[in-house]
């Protein structure tokens, strides 16, 4: 490979971009990944770390189930423990109506091959002993093959593996310009370099919109700020990733419990932790997991996530720029999908088409949130 030329250039070093670079390298393509900062330091490294199949948009489920298989293989290959555990995902149904909705989704997911079950309140309490005794919730929905990982370590490890297989990962290389010629992207430039490739993938999360603008495309993608508060390390007292209403929590393998501090649509790209995050989390645990009231919050952080109007990603080849692909807009639940998205984008570019149906994720689709198809908790 000539230094700045490759078969494919991937823009964005999050889980989608790194997985794409890895998959392309495994297919023997030369690939350069350009990351504006350090890999995994944006949404992918600041997210909840949930690796989840259940409770997704119906179109995402087949991808998530395939992805879980890749996760299992990938973990064995990675150089160090990235904290991935299949400790399950539990969605607590707050009301009977919610239980009914979840039950419907449960049936649909089972019919698509996912191992998932409905739980009574008693069953849920059997899984999690620290729920408030007087919280009369309706039950829950549980997927045992879901889990979580340390998101930053995962992305760093994927990049190391990609490098080992021949991909070039270039950090501190923000893309400053993109050049179109006769309906093809011919080159992109950074501050100091110009890059050429046969195909390009934009997997740049919140920065995707600006990059699209540079080739005359208007994207519907929006930026949200997500916040997480971290407790002091706690003894093991629950396994699954717990979600209820507009709240989630998970226990990292080191013992710290991560609590969601909510998210805000924002205009500026600002990763300051909002003070509202503290009240957000406190109000939602107070009557549900009261033991946490006495637990100390020792730190917190925020990250920027990229949302699409219908909250499922855009995974497509751009209609009038046939060598440009987009993988962005994961709307706060892209972590599980990273590896499969990487594989599918690599197949699309190298073999001509992806091996799974991606028609729901088309660029320029009717971005309507259809709630019956689109159960997306958070």
């Amino acid at each position, binding site marked *: 490979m000539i230094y700045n030329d490759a078969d494919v250039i991937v823009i964005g070093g999050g889980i989608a971009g790194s997985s794409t670079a890895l998959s392309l390298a495994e297919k023997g393509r030369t690939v350069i990944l350009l990351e504006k900062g350090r890999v995994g330091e944006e949404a992918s490294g600041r997210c909840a770390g949930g690796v989840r199949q259940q409770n997704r948009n119906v179109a995402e489920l087949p991808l998530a189930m395939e992805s879980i298989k890749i996760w299992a293989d990938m973990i064995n290959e990675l150089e160090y423990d990235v904290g991935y555990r299949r400790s399950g995902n539990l969605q607590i149904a707050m009301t009977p109506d919610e239980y009914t909705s979840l039950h419907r989704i449960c049936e649909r997911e089972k019919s698509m091959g996912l191992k998932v079950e409905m739980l009574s309140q008693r069953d849920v309490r059997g899984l999690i002993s620290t729920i408030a005794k007087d919280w009369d919730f309706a039950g829950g929905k549980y997927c045992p093959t879901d889990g979580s990982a340390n998101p*930053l370590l995962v992305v760093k490890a994927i990049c*190391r593996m990609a490098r080992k297989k021949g991909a070039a990962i270039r950090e501190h290389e923000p893309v400053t310009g993109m050049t179109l010629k006769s309906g093809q992207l011919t080159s992109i430039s950074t501050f100091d370099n110009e890059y050429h490739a046969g195909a390009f993938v934009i997997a740049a999360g919140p920065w995707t919109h600006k990059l699209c603008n540079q080739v005359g495309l208007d994207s519907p993608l929006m930026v949200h700020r997500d916040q997480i508060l971290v407790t002091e390390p706690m003894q093991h007292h629950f396994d699954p990733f717990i979600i209820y209403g507009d709240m989630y929590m998970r226990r990292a393998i080191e013992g710290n419990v991560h609590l969601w501090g909510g998210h805000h649509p924002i205009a500026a790209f600002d990763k300051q932790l909002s*003070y509202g995050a503290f009240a957000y989390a406190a109000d939602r645990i107070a009557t549900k997991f009261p033991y946490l009231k006495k*637990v100390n919050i020792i730190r917190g952080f925020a990250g920027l996530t990229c949302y699409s109007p219908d909250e499922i990603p855009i995974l497509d080849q751009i209609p009038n720029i046939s060598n440009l692909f987009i993988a962005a807009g994961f709307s706060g639940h892209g972590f599980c999908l990273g590896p499969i998205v990487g594989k599918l984008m690599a197949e699309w570019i190298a073999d001509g088409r992806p091996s799974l149906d991606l028609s729901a994720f088309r660029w320029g689709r009717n971005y309507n949130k259809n709630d019956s198809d689109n159960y997306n908790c958070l």
Partner: protein
Amino acid sequence: MTHHYKAVILGAGPAGLSAAVELARSGTEVAIVEDNPDVGGQVYRQPPEGFIIKEEKHLVARHKIGHQLIQNLKKLSGKISIVHNAYTWGLCNNKCLAVLHNGKINLIEFDKLFLCEGAIERSIPFRGWTLPGIMTAGGLQKMVINQGLLPGKRFLLAGSSPLLLSVAASLVAAGAEFVGVCEATSYLANLRLLPNILTHGSLLSEFISMQQKLLRRSVKFYRPYTIASAEGEAKVRKAILAKLDNSWVPIPGSETQIDIDIVGLGFGFLPHARLARLCGCDHVYDPLQKYWKPMTDQYMQSSQPNIYIAGDSKGIGGADVAELDGRIAGMHAAFELGNITQREFSDQMNVLLNKKLRIKKYVLLLNQIFAPRDGLYDLDGDTIVCRCEGITAKEILAGIDLGARDINELKRITRFGMGLCQGRTCESIVTQLMIQRDVSINKIGYLNLRPPLSPVQLGTFETAASKDIDR
């Protein structure tokens, strides 16, 4: 609950108290927010409630200054509100402090903010340094002279700091059976500074007389030595000392062993600039002192509007400098607020600035003599660096080798600094390890801080008026 004051001072040590007095004198209403139950900070620590303490001779002068300052403060109590046991854990939009007081969140809005967060001890690790019985020299001093407890019989003080002699004197006065002082500084090596030392004649003679007193009371000196390792089961029992060369690298084969039951480590101080980092002001790295410090102009103004930084948290200078800092900052703010005239400002400010210039020369000299040198950071792989999370030097170096190029990334990869103390103890150690691996200091940077600055119980936030403090 939200309060508003024209001037809010964070920290009631020498800098904070002096700023308060200066502001109140000019008629400005001041609020001091102090984490401890009493004023005075570390250096003018008040006796515990119910105690009457007769100070040791070598501490009387300092006690007198502190006492005077607190008296001045009390005289102006009409203009000064002090909130005790109030922990400031955040700063919203650089306009108000988020404070935990009596289990509730309070917001304190200000027109002018004075950050006087003081200093913390620099930790330099060695094998066994986490054993019970091993404390900081300042922590040991507090235990002996303020709490009245001699925590053991055989003491070793190790490090490089003028504080060591003072602590040794306190231990001797309290009846310690054995006191060893292990100093990395070689006085011979500092001979080249003699002309400068001689210009501060009175301080030199004070030092020499202290030395003589200690030698007469059989304090054993080890110079230039450092503590290479400590051994013990549930507490420290033995210390192994090693002689140092000119770069403060331990000389192989020079080890000597002593039986001790308490160790006091004094390797100097670091600015405890936590809110200073939260406010986003500019910082600069001091290569001699090996720490980052917030940048201020001659009036103690940081690069953030309306935020002053005074005292040790802007750069270690000791109590005398801290008091001048506080007065300078207070006077400048009083002028900006229109409470003193241009004439008053010019006259008085010049006096303070000149005083400070003279003291700073002495401080610089002390820094040159006592500042830690690279050899002390030549760590054994198994030495713990991050006490809270149990991260060793080997793991930190592996993280650097894995490609971490700034300290925040290294933290995320290795988990150092993610424990209860949020990097206060270990950040300075990790910074030096990165420098050792040839990462440039401007790339290393310093840890980004996020609220809460110290652990706060989650339940506390239930009562927060989140509408007020949401961004």
